């Protein structure tokens, strides 16, 4: 083999990255790109933040009554809203995963990575980890801002970590979805439009901004099959330390867990289902089989 000749250019001095090493290399690259790209970092945080401030200021007084009607008295609208904004951040950030993939396909980096000896699963794991890491940071920022605006996390720091955890579990299905769009359309604009178009209906037709009880019946019906409802309910249950879920009646556990456990189970299931489709499409896109 060529390795036997030992002139300078005939060594193959590969330290043969481990799987974890390949994950790390890609994790670093996508974090660097996120820091470089103000759109990714700021815009996906700015819109939820504007929602948080405007909604509490504009609807705070009016919505307070509806919140009391749904969840009982004494709950501040800001406290009610912050978990929903946390989920909105996860949603908005997950879109950028598909956009990143499309950009990589367009600027040739996708193929460049395929030609490299890196493990292909590790490549996508590293990219997704970077996105999840960003989502965790952004939810933490939103929670901090929420507390500054007067929201109260009943369960404290552990609860805050729990909400971040819910946000991460929630983000998987949408990350997978935006990657699926990316592979299918291979077009940046279609991916952005496709994923963004869904964001508002998903948010408004859920328990995010008002308790479902005060919303029209058809919205209540749609909210049942809307993943955002499960994400928001789980985050809100942690925030308030109460069983807030109305779309599924579970009493097997205790208090807030009656919401958290079924909601996280539903989200995890969705993540696996959507993830399966995305993984199938990605491995087909990176396979060398002729089509």
């Amino acid at each position, binding site marked *: 083999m060529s390795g036997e000749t030992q002139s300078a250019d005939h060594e*193959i001095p*590969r330290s043969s990255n481990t799987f974890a090493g390949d994950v790390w*290399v890609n994790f*670093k690259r996508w974090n660097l790109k996120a820091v470089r790209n103000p759109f990714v970092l700021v815009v996906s945080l700015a819109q939820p933040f504007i929602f948080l401030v405007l909604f509490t200021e504009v609807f705070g007084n009016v919505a307070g009554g509806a919140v009391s009607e749904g969840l009982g008295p004494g709950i501040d609208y800001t406290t009610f809203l912050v978990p929903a904004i946390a989920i909105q951040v996860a949603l908005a950030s997950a879109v950028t995963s598909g956009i990143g993939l499309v950009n990589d396909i367009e600027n040739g980096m996708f*193929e460049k990575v395929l030609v490299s*000896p890196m493990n292909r699963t590790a490549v996508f794991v590293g990219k997704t980890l970077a996105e999840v890491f960003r989502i965790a940071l952004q939810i933490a920022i939103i929670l901090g801002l929420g507390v500054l605006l007067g929201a109260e996390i009943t369960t404290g720091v552990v609860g805050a970590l729990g909400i971040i955890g819910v946000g991460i579990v929630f983000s998987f299905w949408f990350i997978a979805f935006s990657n699926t769009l990316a592979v299918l359309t291979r077009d940046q604009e279609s991916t952005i439009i496709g994923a963004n178009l869904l964001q508002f209906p998903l948010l408004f037709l859920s328990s995010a901004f008002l308790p479902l009880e005060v919303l029209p019946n058809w919205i209540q019906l749609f909210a049942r099959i809307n993943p955002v409802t499960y994400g928001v309910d789980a985050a809100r249950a942690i925030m308030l330390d109460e069983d807030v879920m109305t779309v599924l009646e579970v009493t097997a556990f205790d208090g807030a867990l009656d919401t958290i456990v079924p909601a996280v189970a539903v989200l995890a299931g969705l993540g696996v289902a959507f993830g399966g489709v995305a993984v199938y499409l990605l491995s087909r896109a990176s396979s060398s089989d*002729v*089509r």
Partner: protein
Amino acid sequence: MSNDRSVADAETQREQSRQGAVDRTTPTTAPSIEIDGLELTYGDGTAAVDGVDLTVADGEFFGFLGPNGAGKTTAIKVLATLLSPTAGEVRVNGFDVRAEPRKVRESIGYMAQETSIDPELTAEENIRFACEAYGVPRSKRDDRTAELLDLVDLTAVADKRSEGFSSGMKKRLDAATALVHRPPLVFLDEPTTGLDPNARNRLWEYFRRINARGTTVFLTTQYLEEADQLCERLAVILDGGIVADGSPDELKRQVGGDVLDIELQDGEDARARAVEIAGKFDAFEDAIVEGTETGISVTAKTARESGTDLLVALRDAGLTVTGFNVRAPTLDDVFLAITGERVDIESTAGGVETEAAAGTEETS
């Protein structure tokens, strides 16, 4: 060679490797590329590569020449493990592309036709990412990055984001990232397409340096001049099959001789008469005679030996020869001979079916 930055050294080595090209093909090392009966048919039934046999020796500067759509990129993608062959055996650096794709990937550098760099990263970060992707040992990454930046003259803009680079700079950066692991074999897919002559010359210089270090270079190009300038050996691919193979000089010889350009006085009538005389000239067998702007051009096997006889015949016919030149054919002439038409760089390879059939007859 330990110090790649020494240009003088590199040039010396280059000279040696040029001269020693024939010797080095003897099997002291395995060939870099061995292709046996490669076929690749796309899902829609298009046979992009249809029965290619090819061996590229270790250290060779090899050129794959052909018009757009001839199958160059498809073939190079098979070699780089991006496409699985439909049929045939392909070994790269001794590894089977189907059975050991990762071994192949570790041992090659690949520069795609479209410039592939991350525009959000700086020049240095792009190279560093490649170092990490190819598992260059941590202790060597700094040196390797600095060395490659220097080699492609991007040290001054190392910390600038690559999105602002000119296309020539982007190409050079792309080329540098393909070399971080010092692969014994590098694929360059139309590396200079779309570049201005200045940028092209710089890249050529750079490719020569890599080859001088002992790296096998597999280059595809539509530019005859590029192939002529750089390559020790060429294969011409047309409609998925190889129709000619050899050194640039050998290919030129296949044109059927040398070219005798004659300049004449007295305008068009004189030229027409000269074409007539040259066409009937006994000493030339199967000569191709063309009228040119200033005289005539004769391509014939015996153009060198019998050229003077033709000049005498023209003088005897009362024509005034004002200048003449016997030259070896260019690759342009080669392409004309093989494809039956002048190569139109930007258009697709239409109207070459008859010639291509000759090259693919052994597939069936």
